[in-house]
């Protein structure tokens, strides 16, 4: 055994001089790591869920729409049938085909929906039901009735808020009043003066997303119906929503589309551009969580510092003896750092076990936020009341590394204090 091994042995045995104290300390530090892992898992899970829900209830991961639509929101800005077919053809044939999970052309407009009881202003969305199922969450959020069929030419599905207001049930007859869209003529003038259209529809389903802005406003009909009531005879749509297999591919897919559609009067936006508020909220949430994680790490660090420092202060006399019989200051410091690293390693193992265990539960069973937000969920952040943890290997490695590095750095101070034990003062018997 070399003196290095002796120091390791000493460090390890010193750690277990007070097993209960060591275990309690390791548990406390482990809890810090576990909290960090749980916090990161819920944060990432929440964000992933929010992004997924946000884009699936909105314009998708990537959206193609007429130039200026994002800024003006004008329903009159439409994509031509040619642009639609070019886009669809490109997405089917290009090398990004495998990245795309769904493509849904949509026609958006405003209208008035009336029942025999009441009337409500609505956001009309014309969709190809089969395509919309591959992109939107609404088909999965039907609480009554069924989602639209591809051949549903006289049916409408409505949000739960509208159904409540109109007192509409499945099978209820409702009248949709729309203003035909203003389309520019070949010389640039807009056609105007078309009369309001009234269309009798039957409620075939009611959906509830949990987002009031959707539940109280959106109604969906099949695309041919929407085009007919809006006076569009040439197959125009407002946007083409794309759902990707991996949200992170959005910028690449958007760039490819921009290149392909470079000659057309269109804008291609990622969800961060089409839903800037959501992106900002997530960014703020990230920043807040980094602060919280900083607090957790500071607490972990102070815990380690306090523990190691107390151990060093208690053993000043012993260090004096070690120095007197020939242990060099550097060797004393290594012994203390060794103790600290051993304690940190035990803590990390406990923390990993606890943190990954809880994360596993939260990733499979989820955390039901309805227990916390009894009066309703914060709509901008979470759409699904069950929050599932998502913890990547990168996050785990990062957390373990950061705690390990902090613990190592912090142990330098007690080690320095031990190494600086002054002779002969340290040998005075109290």
């Amino acid at each position, binding site marked *: 055994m070399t003196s290095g091994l002796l120091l390791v042995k000493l460090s390890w045995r010193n750690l*277990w001089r007070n097993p209960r104290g060591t275990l309690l300390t390791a548990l406390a530090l482990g809890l810090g790591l576990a909290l960090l892992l749980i916090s990161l898992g819920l944060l990432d899970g929440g964000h992933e869920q929010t992004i997924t829900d946000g884009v699936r209830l909105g314009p998708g991961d990537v959206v193609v729409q007429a130039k200026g639509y994002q800024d003006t929101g004008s329903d009159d800005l439409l994509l031509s049938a040619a642009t639609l077919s070019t886009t669809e053809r490109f997405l089917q044939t290009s090398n990004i085909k495998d990245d795309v999970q769904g493509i849904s052309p949509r026609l958006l407009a405003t209208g008035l929906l009336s029942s025999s009881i009441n009337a409500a202003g609505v956001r009309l969305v014309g969709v190809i039901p089969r395509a919309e199922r591959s992109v939107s969450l609404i088909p999965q959020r039907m609480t009554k009735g069924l989602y639209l069929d591809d051949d549903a030419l006289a049916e409408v599905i409505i949000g739960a808020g509208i159904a409540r207001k109109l007192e509409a049930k499945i099978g209820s007859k409702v009248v949709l009043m729309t203003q035909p869209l203003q389309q520019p003529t070949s010389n640039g003038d807009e056609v105007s003066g078309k009369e309001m259209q009234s269309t009798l529809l039957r409620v075939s389903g009611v959906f509830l997303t949990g987002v009031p802005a959707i539940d109280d406003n959106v109604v969906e009909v099949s695309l041919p119906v929407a085009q007919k009531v809006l006076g569009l005879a040439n197959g125009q749509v407002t946007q083409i929503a794309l759902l990707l297999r991996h949200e992170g591919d959005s910028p690449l897919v958007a760039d490819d589309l921009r290149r392909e559609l470079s000659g057309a009067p269109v804008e291609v936006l990622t969800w961060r551009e089409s839903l800037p508020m959501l992106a900002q909220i997530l960014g703020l949430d990230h920043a807040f969580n980094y602060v919280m994680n900083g607090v957790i790490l500071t607490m972990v660090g102070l815990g380690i510092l306090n523990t190691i420092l107390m151990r060093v202060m208690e053993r000043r006399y012993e260090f004096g003896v070690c120095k007197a019989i020939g242990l060099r200051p550097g060797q004393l410091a290594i012994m203390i750092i060794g103790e600290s690293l051993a304690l940190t390693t035990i803590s990390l193992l406990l923390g990993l076990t606890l943190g990954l265990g809880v994360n596993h539960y939260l990733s499979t069973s989820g955390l039901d936020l309805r227990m916390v937000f009894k009066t309703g969920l914060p709509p901008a952040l979470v759409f699904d009341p069950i929050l599932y943890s998502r913890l990547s290997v990168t996050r785990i490695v990062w957390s373990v590394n950061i705690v390990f590095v902090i613990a190592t750095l912090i142990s330098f101070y007690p080690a320095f204090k031990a190494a600086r034990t002054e002779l002969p003062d340290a040998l005075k018997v109290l």
Partner: protein
Amino acid sequence: MTEWAVELEEVRKSYHTGPIEVRALRGISLQIDSGEFVATAGPSGSGKTTLLNLIGGLDRADAGEVLVAGENLQRLSSGELAHLRLLRIGFVFQTYNLLPVLTAAENAEFTLLLQGVPAHERRERVKALFAEIGLAGLENRRPAELSGGQQQRVAVARAMVTKPALILADEPTANLDSATAIDLLDVMERLNRSTGTTFIFSTHDPQVMERAHRLIRLRDGQIVSDEVRAGQEAVANVQATAGGGL
């Protein structure tokens, strides 16, 4: 010129307790030859421990010269002092001061390990020494499982196992009952005779003073008497130091 095991020349040391200056040693001059078995005695505050600390290189004198085995400690760096302590000096403390997490044998091996002595040699030396001082069979016990006398023997073994030139023992029997203290003194005296190692210890204990071959009495930081005993002709070697003294 004679090279003494320990030689002090006009050594002075003061401590400051707040604004008060405590003059612990007031010009001590002293020579100790190799193989001597010396006790320093005196009341509390007389300077016994300070004297041992200076000889052991645990502290530095304010003035004067401290030479151990020909090395002037005043001129050595902290690292060189540590090296000297590791190789040439053994310490036995009042409160045993064994490392509680190591076994008796590991405690004794500790300094050998620091010296880089190979494992088989370490084991042999510890085994032989333990047998010599009555610790055989206790090698694997932790300090908490040993009596005070046994712990102090382990401390003596730790100090002796490196075959140092000098052993410094600060009140080694202070925490032992008289029978155990006599046993320990027997061990130390036997080692002194068999190895020729110089022993210097401080004590209040009349038994220890009785057993010393040379007794140096201190009072107020000065040597008041220095007598050689144990069958030798008692010499009242009254030294006239610069700071005074008998």
